[in-house]
């Protein structure tokens, strides 16, 4: 006989409104288990209580919560209490460095290293086509805005255009053609230096070496000439670099440009 058997019997009696008494065996079992007796009493009270009142009242609420509390305490007294044990350091170490946990940690680390080393290169990673399209559109708009500002009469606005071109990816041919044209013809040294600064951040200038090389050789403004040389020496092809140095070494140059070229020559011999 179990607790549930007795409770089921009690519920059946209440359901059929029966006044039958439990069997002696059952009665003995109930007597031997006070908690079960309390629970049966709660069930009877709960079953009979709400039927006597039409609507829930304050007294009913109070009764209900009292009974609920009793039921919870009965349940708690039946459940075995967890035993908390304070582990010593040695035991703690043994627990967490046990073969089971060490194996799990090793497997996790191995998978992490495997994934890290075999992840696809950024350029090979799958790209969301929608995001890529949006990025291209933004870059195109930025390039158009840059071109528009570059054609203004005010040097400050042209500088803003150069700043916008820095934000684009410098692959727009029209934008690059505009920058090259302004590099050779703009009357403001500040604008030309800003363009050179922008070109320094371009991925490649190989397509424009045939424009930059004669500009660097024939430039009259020493500051601009130095920056042109720096750009070609940093980013130009070997052919362009050699041609530039050959031409400049044979020319009469501004003193500051000559100093710059001499330093480059000295570094190249180191």
């Amino acid at each position, binding site marked *: 006989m179990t607790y549930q058997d007795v409770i089921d019997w009690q519920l059946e009696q209440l359901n059929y409104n029966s006044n039958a008494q439990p069997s002696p065996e059952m009665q003995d079992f109930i007597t031997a288990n006070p908690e079960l007796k309390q629970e049966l009493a709660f069930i009877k009270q709960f079953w009979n209580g709400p039927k006597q009142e039409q609507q829930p009242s304050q007294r009913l609420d109070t009764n209900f919560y009292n009974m609920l509390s009793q039921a919870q305490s009965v349940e708690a007294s039946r459940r075995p209490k967890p035993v908390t044990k304070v582990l010593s350091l040695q035991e703690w170490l043994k627990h967490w460095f046990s073969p089971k946990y060490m194996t799990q940690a090793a497997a996790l680390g191995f998978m992490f290293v495997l994934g890290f080393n075999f992840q696809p290169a950024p350029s090979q990673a799958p790209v969301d086509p929608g995001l890529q399209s949006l990025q291209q559109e933004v870059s195109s708009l930025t390039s158009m805005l840059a071109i528009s500002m570059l054609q203004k009469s005010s040097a400050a606005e042209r*500088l803003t255009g150069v700043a916008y071109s820095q934000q684009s990816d410098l692959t727009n041919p029209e934008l690059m053609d505009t920058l090259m044209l302004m590099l050779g013809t703009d009357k403001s040294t500040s604008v030309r230096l*800003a363009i050179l600064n922008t070109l320094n951040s371009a991925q490649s200038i190989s397509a424009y070496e045939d424009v930059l090389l004669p500009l660097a050789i024939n430039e009259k403004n020493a500051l601009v000439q130095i920056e042109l040389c720096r750009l070609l020496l940093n980013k130009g092809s070997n052919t362009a670099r050699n041609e530039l140095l050959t031409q400049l070494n044979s020319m009469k140059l501004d003193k500051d440009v000559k100093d710059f070229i001499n330093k480059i020559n000295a570094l190249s011999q180191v």
Partner: protein
Amino acid sequence: MKPSILAAVLFLLPATLSFTSAAEQNYSLPLSKPGEATSLIAEVHTGTVSVSGYDGETIEITARVKDVDPEDMEKVKRSKPPRQAGPEKKAPSTEGLKAVKSRMMKLEIEEEDNEVYITSQYSTQHVVLDIKVPRRADLGIEVYKGGNISISNISGSIEASAYQGGITANKVSGPIVAETYNTDIVVNFDSFNKENPTSLTSHKGNIDITLNKQVAAKVNVQSYQGEIYSGLDSEFVAIENVERSNENGKQSIEIASVMSTKVNGGGQDITLTTYSGNVYIRK
């Protein structure tokens, strides 16, 4: 509204005009559209230009002439092609005559839809211009030889180039794009325009700027051989470009010659570039 074009060509003869001993001429030019955007373009071959902003709606011009530096005059004479040899002519007699020092000045002034153009292309006279413009005016000033460019109390954009003289701007808000060759650029910002960048460039001159305490900007400095002196609280850091190439495992790091700092959290760019001059940033 049909644009009005006002052109005035002034030829000054000291014998006929009796304004001042320095043959000073004053001229007041009303704007076609008072209260609207205004611009002043002044191109002077040899001279000094001072522009100040005020609360009026006319362009006030004071022009006078002073002697050109003798060394410059010699250069002008040497630049002229020699006369071809011909039959010897006898010079007219100057007995009883005295030499009259030339004070002729050719100055062209035009105004169209609030755009004012002032040009002086004379190379043998040093023209001194004092100009008053509405404070909001945009300026474009170029002086090839001679003296300085001085600007004060202007809230519009400024573009200035001086190849022998220096450039001084006081109580301005920018943007300013200014350039000198071997003379200094001195700018005092009382406020700062956030829409467009400012750039000051000099090949050998110093660049000296003063920023108002409330100015928020990103200051970029490049001096190849000079020193940089800063009174700002923030530190300058070198801008570097790191390029990693997967080809042959090559990596390169380029530490550029530009140093940068953010003032009051950063904002529009102020770029200061000089080859051998010093840079001074004051607060």
